[in-house]
């Protein structure tokens, strides 16, 4: 017996696949899910620094820690989910951001900071399901109250032919003091469940998120010499704020497990 066969046999023992009567699938009122996957941003770049900062090829791991669905009707339900985004990494088109300075300064110490925040995001909305026997399809429309911001970009300007040194920071905020923006997002999702029995299901899903807040960027130019005076702060020389044309959007692909329950009496007898 090969290793593959042993593993398969082991898996078969773990998941008791039982016959499911078609009518009962839609009567399961509660569904708990936990999923993992990847997400990526698909923003288009323009000449606006806010859009350049947002079109940063952001990718991250998407963990839906928990999603709870409650079906008020056999087909219609409400859902609420809790996501986090660890391991975000981004890549900003640095050349476009430093271009305005290139003729008067040498641009050095370019640094692209990955997004610092990693959630959590709370999403809630409406869900519609259809299917029978083992295969179920679910469609979701919801709203989420948080977005993963683009990363920051920092560089040093060294004057050409003089001693001037400046530090330039681009941050995706509307002021240098705000460090997070809570935006309203539209969340769309489609899931496909494969039920092993009336309790456990394997879930694969695709999601799309659209933000309703336009991209923003805040640039601060600070005199590096003034940093030395008190050791901590710089004196800012120039501050500029941009509102971009685009709004950020993200795609995600997840897989995970679902657990289904029915509160009153167990419809399915555990089949051995």
């Amino acid at each position, binding site marked *: 017996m090969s290793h593959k066969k042993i593993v398969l046999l082991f898996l078969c023992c773990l998941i008791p696949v039982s016959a499911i009567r078609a009518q009962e699938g839609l009567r399961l009122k509660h569904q708990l899910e936990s999923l993992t996957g990847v997400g990526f941003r698909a923003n288009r770049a323009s000449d606006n620094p806010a859009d350049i900062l947002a079109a940063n090829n952001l990718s991250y791991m998407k963990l839906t820690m928990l999603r709870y669905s409650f079906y008020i009707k056999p087909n219609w339900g409400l859902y609420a989910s809790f996501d986090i985004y660890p391991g975000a990494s981004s890549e900003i088109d640095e050349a476009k951001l430093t271009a305005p300075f290139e003729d008067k300064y040498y641009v050095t110490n370019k640094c692209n900071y990955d997004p610092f925040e990693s959630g959590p995001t709370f999403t809630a909305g409406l869900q519609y399901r259809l299917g029978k026997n083992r295969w179920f399809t679910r469609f979701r429309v919801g709203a989420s109250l948080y977005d993963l911001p683009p990363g920051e970009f920092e560089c040093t300007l060294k004057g050409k032919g003089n*001693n001037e040194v400046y530090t330039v920071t681009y941050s995706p905020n509307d002021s240098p003091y705000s460090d997070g923006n809570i935006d309203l997002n539209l969340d769309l999702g489609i899931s496909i469940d494969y039920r092993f029995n009336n309790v456990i299901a394997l879930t694969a899903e695709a999601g799309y998120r659209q933000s309703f807040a336009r991209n923003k960027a805040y640039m601060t130019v600070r005199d590096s010499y003034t940093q*030395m005076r008190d*050791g901590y702060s710089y004196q800012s020389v120039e501050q500029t704020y941009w509102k971009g044309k685009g709004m950020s959007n993200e795609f995600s692909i997840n897989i995970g497990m679902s657990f289904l329950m029915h509160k009153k009496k167990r419809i399915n007898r555990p089949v051995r």
Partner: protein
Amino acid sequence: MRKAACWSILLLLLLTTTATSCEEDEWPDEEYPLCSVTGMSVSHWDNTGVMPQLPNQNKIAKEAYLMEILLTTDGIYDDWKYSMLPALQDSIAKINIYTIHPLNQEYPADADITSCFKEYPLSLKNKIDDSTVRGYPITHLKAASSLYKALFAVPDAGTHQFRVVLTFTSGLTMEAESKPIELY
């Protein structure tokens, strides 16, 4: 049954706390090496490019003049043995820069032009932070430490020469003169 569960939780708590905590070590008494400033030299850098360069034909553009004050000590710094730099027996309280020739209309010969210089913010070789500009004496030095000062006053074109005076907390002073340099 419930009692057993309570006891097992308590036992688990005890086990995890004993397994994850360790006795706090006292800091070892480190004997920091002492040192004193043995030498000082002043050199010129041409800062027109990305990084400072040695002046070409002893000429530097007057907007891009950078001064290096190199301090040498008799301290031996061993990274493996000590976590701190050797301490100065006599710390540096003040650094003054004087011009030997007139700098411009405002600063005649032998004037104190310390305020015309600013601490260069980018990192360079052996660069140390000059805390005297913030009012704190320099207390620790490597065997060779450099202070970089960028000139921000516009000097008259011509040959210039500078004198740097260190004042220690004990009141002793140390002087060094730069070589003449042509600023254009």
